[in-house]
């Protein structure tokens, strides 16, 4: 991806306008986030939408940033793991810590984004629903049990708050 490029555009990331210069037309949002904007939270592994470790929100929809054409995301609201809860862990992030849902940590940003997205759309998901909704995020360490536990802890806590 070291092609010379001449594109200049502006992305809205985590509430800020971020200028991108000298970009090549085919660059993915993942590449631009990490290599041009210095946002290293979204991880790059498969670069074909299989692993979910690059998950971000674009206009509120959970997508793989590796499959988003960066220059095509102009004018859309992009939220990355860095913008999900600046300054302090979100309830989902804290639940991942409390449940021991983190081992090597590589998949964690994508899973946290997916869990936030799931709980927005379905505040009290069944275990089957959690499994289906997180099926686009691959973890090779924990075996998923503690990740499901973390999501369920947040669902219970949020129900208690309501």
């Amino acid at each position, binding site marked *: 991806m070291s092609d010379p490029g001449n594109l200049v555009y502006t992305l809205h990331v985590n509430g800020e306008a971020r200028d991108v210069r000298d970009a090549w037309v085919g660059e993915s949002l993942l590449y631009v986030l990490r290599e041009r904007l210095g946002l290293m939270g979204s991880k790059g592994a498969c*670069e074909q939408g299989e692993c*979910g470790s690059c998950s971000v929100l674009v206009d509120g929809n959970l997508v793989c940033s*590796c499959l988003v054409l960066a*220059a095509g995301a102009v004018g859309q609201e992009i939220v990355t793991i860095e913008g999900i809860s600046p300054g302090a862990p979100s309830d989902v992030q804290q639940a991942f810590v409390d449940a021991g849902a983190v081992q090597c940590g590589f998949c964690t940003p994508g899973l946290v984004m997916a869990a936030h997205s799931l709980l927005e759309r379905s505040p009290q998901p069944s275990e089957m629903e959690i499994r289906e*909704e997180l*099926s686009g995020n691959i973890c090779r360490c924990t075996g998923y049990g503690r990740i499901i536990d973390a999501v369920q802890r947040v669902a219970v806590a949020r129900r208690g708050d309501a």
Partner: protein
Amino acid sequence: MSVLVPTSLDGALQALADHPDATVLAGGTDLMVEFNGGRRRPSDVVVVNRVPELCTWRHDPVVGTLRIGAGVTYAEIERDPIATWVPALAQAARTVGSPQIRHAATRGGNVGTGSPAGDGLPVLAALDAVVELTSAAGVRTVPFAEFMVGPKRTSRAAGELITAITLPVLDGWQGYTKVGVRNAMVIATASVALAVSNADAGVAIALGSVGPTILRCPEAEALAAQHADFTERRLAADVVVECGRLAAAASRPIDDHRSSAEYRRHAVGVLAGRLLRRAFPHE
């Protein structure tokens, strides 16, 4: 080199008229894999997922059709109300990739890619869907069976945009099923869509991932329709077995990195029989 992001249909058609050889990108879930892997080096790209006219659907209860705009995502197709009108398409949508993929991937993009393994395509073939193509010169419609002409080859001309797919809303059972190496996030090794029309006493069966295009199996369809009791939803067990055999015989699979041709041929027969049994649960 440019990336154009039109926000109206007129704008998209103008962009394609100005750049007829541009790469048309909808959800990006197929094309970005090729960009990322260096297998395709785009020059001009027209991004069409922000065209509001493409992101709507229209149900016509009088004619009995559903027109799905090319920009409608699989996430929308797997939910009501579309799931109520074309349940097989909703089932197929739910098996596409992951939630992340389905939030981005579009009805039109799936048709435009034209992969024999595309989950949405056997349903279109079984329902005799019509593809609507629009260019600066006007609109034309093409039956899906004529639109897809080979593996990842379609009859879309330069300067044309896939704008919608129109499907009949039928009165009978319909479904989609596939096999792959696991349940989630998997490209079909073999897939089948089946749609029953009680009004026409018809059974349509379409096969995916077992030929250069999506294949219909007229012999299996005719045999099932001939012996089925559409009111009582009955079909004799030996007819189901024979229809499965005819479906397998209609397939034209190849050996590749995902499966052997022999396994695909076997699997597609099993899947066709399984769907027939769901459509006609009584013997």
